[in-house]
């Protein structure tokens, strides 16, 4: 390819030359043997490539995997979006303690803490923090799977408990994976479900003697507690009570069936 016009011939062949240049190159091709040969060779190569190369498509399994990861990603994005206003409320009252109204705010907070000890159970804070953190960080899921037979054995190696795991997709609660979180100095198992745009974290850890309320709401999040066998369960979500209890009911029914 010694002719200085060879790159122009290639551009002409690739349809990149404008009309004037194209006419110019066509004239050049008439009297340059080398470029005519080049042009013919480019045509032959393209014909062969179009004829011989397989038009590969993405395998169905990979497409499904990509779509699943998009599901998790859009769920995380939605969750982040939802969780942010909760954090914004914190500096508000923390900042108030430094102002003139500070003492009143502290007093009110103290009164609140003393008068409602049930809400200050440390594990509730831990649960809420774990839930909100799971939505804010990328640590929503350690094991991504919609298959209970993948998630349950995974817990065996990573947590201190073996909770009920099932996919309730037909009922609208899709199993998306599992995670390990620290709760009450244990490695608690967290089963992550998706219900519409909501994330539901179902925590489970070895039950203690302390009694927990059946339900409570904190910072807009609903927490539902129940015990099954010797495990304490808590489902946390920003979904409505009815929606949250739908999943709790399914899990309790499953536990009941398993016990019989």
């Amino acid at each position, binding site marked *: 390819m010694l002719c200085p016009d060879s790159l122009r011939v290639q551009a002409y062949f690739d349809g990149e030359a404008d009309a004037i240049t194209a006419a110019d190159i066509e004239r050049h091709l008439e009297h340059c043997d080398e470029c005519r040969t080049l042009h013919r060779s480019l045509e032959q190569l393209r014909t062969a490539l179009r004829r011989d*190369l397989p038009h590969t498509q993405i395998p169905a399994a990979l497409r499904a*995997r990509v779509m699943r990861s998009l599901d998790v990603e859009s769920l995380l994005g939605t969750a982040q979006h939802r969780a942010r206003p909760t954090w914004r409320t914190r500096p508000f009252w923390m900042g108030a303690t430094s102002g003139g109204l500070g003492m009143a705010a502290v007093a009110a907070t103290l009164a609140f803490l003393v008068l409602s000890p049930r809400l200050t159970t440390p594990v509730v804070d831990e649960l809420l923090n774990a839930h909100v953190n799971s939505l804010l960080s990328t640590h929503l899921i350690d094991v991504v799977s919609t298959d209970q037979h993948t998630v349950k054995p995974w817990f065996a190696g990573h947590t201190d408990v073996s909770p009920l795991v099932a996919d309730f997709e037909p009922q609208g609660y899709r199993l998306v994976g599992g995670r390990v979180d620290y709760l009450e100095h244990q490695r608690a198992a967290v089963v992550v479900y998706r219900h519409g745009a909501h994330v539901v974290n179902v925590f489970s850890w070895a039950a203690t003697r302390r009694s927990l309320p059946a339900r409570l709401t904190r910072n807009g999040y609903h927490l539902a507690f129940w015990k099954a066998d010797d495990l304490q369960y808590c489902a946390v979500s920003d979904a409505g009570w009815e929606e949250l209890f739908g999943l709790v009911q399914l899990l309790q029914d499953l536990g009941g069936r398993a016990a019989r």
Partner: protein
Amino acid sequence: MDDRRRRFEAQVLPHLDAAYRFARWLARSPDDADDIVQEAILRAFRGFDALRTSEVKAWLLTIVRNCHSTALKQQQRRAQVPLPEEHDTQDGHALISTTPDPETASIRRDAEHTLARLIGGLPDDYREVLVLREIEDMRYREIAEVTNLPIGTVMSRLARARSALKEHWVLQASGESHAVP
């Protein structure tokens, strides 16, 4: 499904096959290609709001290429062994290795077609411009965008890639005809 996700699926997912093909030509193994595609689609989804161009395919393939580079750097850092391609450049004539290392380009492994095997044997720099032009049918401007090269470099690499491919294709064809008694 929210509106953003719907727009993403409508605009970007039609190019999923192209992203996969390009990843297969770039990657060192089919598994690597799978990971690259998944990572690229996730990155594309995260950066979708910043997408200002109508050339979605070029944008997506740019991300695929970046994911491949990142993966490659990580592998190199882990392995600390020279890559097979680096030996090719020692010999000026070795634009195409006629007995391609099966590890270097995944598509060679299952390519039954001579041309695919020969393209797999091209050095990375030449292979990608050739694939983008001849298989993905992209304009020079788009290829320049994906590969982050000046258009002049795209043109000269494309010319060298084609000439090398043609040369070895002819050699291969004549070799085969001699082999037949």
